[in-house]
């Protein structure tokens, strides 16, 4: 599918261009729903579609009122606060447990590795509704249902597989002789970990942490069952908003969240490049 050769037949030419048009349409399908909410969130009316003023690019058709509502409405502010309280703690738990375990898993002799791996990855595979059901039953038995720590622990468990996968991926390219070199120069294992291993696997750890963060920040099924009104997060508020009183403030929130995901995507891409560069430098 590289450049069209000069000897291409008319049929080939037609196919070449129609294939690009088809691909263009699919890309449009992928990106259009996300882009369309950005202008709609500035709608001066409480409609979910473009008004005549908006199409005429009349400034009167646009306003910040939905953003204003988001930043002043106590419900949304409480939801934002709850999300900000839950996600970082869950991320911290998932990342610290996950990184240490990934280092352990990357050693050359791990007994029962497939079984351990299956258990550690399972939160990612089991459908969320089943995790939510199980956690709801179990956490209400032990009194964690409807508590802050119940939600945090559940979100941390859901985030760990991502940390394991990303950190293990960076450790695959890790040169073990660096650890031996550090040990032979008199560093103890802890110093070796923080001074030698950690700087090299940092991209994996950070991208794992980002995945864990987005898992918790985006998660709605588990928190819907496990949380009580005191743990109402941003996605939960959006979910009820979409199901019951559909308000255009949701579009403002959605636009802000798209902005967050663009930032996350950029950070991840930079990390990937850095990791590739670093690995290019490490010998062997």
């Amino acid at each position, binding site marked *: 599918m590289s450049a069209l050769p000069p000897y291409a037949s008319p049929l080939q030419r037609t196919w070449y261009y129609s294939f690009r048009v088809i691909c263009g349409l699919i890309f449009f399908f992928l*990106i259009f729903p996300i882009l369309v909410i950005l202008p709609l969130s500035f709608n001066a009316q409480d409609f979910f579609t473009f008004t005549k003023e908006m199409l005429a690019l009349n400034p009167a058709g646009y306003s910040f009122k939905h953003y204003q509502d988001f930043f002043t409405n106590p419900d949304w502010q409480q939801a934002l606060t709850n999300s900000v309280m839950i996600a970082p703690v869950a991320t911290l738990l998932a990342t610290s447990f996950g990184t240490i375990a990934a280092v352990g898993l990357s050693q050359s002799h791990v007994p029962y590795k497939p079984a351990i791996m299956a258990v*550690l990855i399972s939160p990612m595979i089991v459908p969320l509704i089943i995790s939510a059901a199980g956690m709801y039953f179990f956490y209400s038995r032990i009194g964690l249902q409807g508590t802050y720590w119940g939600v945090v622990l559940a979100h941390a468990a859901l985030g760990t597989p991502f940390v394991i996968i990303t950190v293990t991926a960076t450790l695959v390219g890790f040169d073990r002789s660096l650890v031996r070199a550090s040990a032979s120069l008199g560093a103890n294992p802890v110093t070796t970990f923080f001074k030698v291993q950690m700087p090299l696997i940092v991209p994996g750890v950070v991208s794992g942490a980002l995945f864990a963060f987005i898992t918790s920040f985006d998660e709605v099924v588990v928190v819907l069952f496990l949380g009580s009104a005191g743990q109402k997060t941003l996605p939960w508020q959006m979910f009820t908003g979409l199901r019951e009183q559909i308000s255009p403030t949701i579009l403002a929130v959605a636009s802000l969240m798209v902005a967050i995901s663009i930032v996350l995507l950029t950070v991840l891409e930079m990390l990937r490049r850095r990791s590739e560069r670093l690995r290019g430098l490490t010998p062997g």
Partner: protein
Amino acid sequence: MSDTTAGQVLTTKDGKPLKAALARALRREKLRSLALIAPLLIFVLLTFVAPIVDMLFRSVENSIVEDTLPRTVVALREWDPASGQVPDEEVFAALYGDLVVAVEEKKHTRLGSRLNYEESGISSLFRKTGRRVNRMDEAGPFKEQFIDADDKWDEIGTWQVLRQFSPPYTDGYFLNAFDAQRTADGIELKPEDERIYMLLFGRTLFLSIVITVSCLLLGYPIAFLLAALPLRSSNLLMILVLLPFWTSLLVRTSAWKVLLQQQGVINDFLVWTGLISDASRLVMINNQTGTIIAMTHILLPFMILPLYSVMKTISPTYVRAAKSLGANDWTAFWRVYFPQSVPGIGAGAVLVFILSIGYYITPELVGGTSGIFISNRIAYHISSSLNWGLAAALGTLLLVAVMVLFVVYDKIVGIDNVKLG
């Protein structure tokens, strides 16, 4: 170690046999790796695996009857349901004794609603009898007094249900999940108009297949294009795939809600272009169409990324060789390129299928009543009907389906090769 066959045992510097020293080093290494893994393993076992096991247990657990009516359960063992007569005075006396305690602890209504899942009417029977039981004559005879309180005590069916569900474990929830019930002639399917779960499982399966196929049809050309383009432009286009991937699920669902509504952007556009009239706006949401469109969009990146990573490894020289040997474009693609991309199709399709079969949020918001999945029913039983046992049984069935699919995925891709982004 008494390995003397070699005549001479290799030793380390401090005189220990080399073999033993190596074994010890290996053991220490194993222990160290386990010690590093242990915190997370324990964490996941406690916060995640234990709840799942608890759910599996709940799908068969049924100790409530024995806990609430211990004496009745024992007395009922003597009774023969085939005799065609309700139990005798002894059983009623035991029931009286149990109910007095249960009413005092307010446990009889919970038992009533539990047994109501098996036969409707029992819930009100227990509530009604519960109100009467304190006014009954303690000296007996109890049989007449109970039948006087509610005729249902004179029906064999009531006692059959009570006896059938007195053991601490039951297959009742699973039978329910399979739309079956236990009757006097053994297990049989429920009347046709009451079979909802098999219908829901079938629909979940059907919609997941439709979604997987549409993801494949849309994802294959994109992955093909991305793999064929030079790295610079493919990286740029990759952003168009990754941005939806990273955008919140609820954001994408709300976007579709906005687009597909009858007063939404797509309908407005179609009316404006004159393709449809204002009166005949398309109904694209709160039905299966809504679920299929929105979920195809949400899961498409999960198809494109594995396909792309497989297609990237297919060397273009094979297709060139095929063409130089006289194959036309189509033959070269179909006979040479396509077979090499099949592992990617397998990986992407199984991944999308696993994800879609357990989806909850999107069908709930855009699926209406005809586009909902089995997971929505599970959620309903947990939060609205409070039939937790049935929710657990349905969840167990769904879990088994996903596990089987996952073993397939593991065979195709390998659990260690899961890559993100």
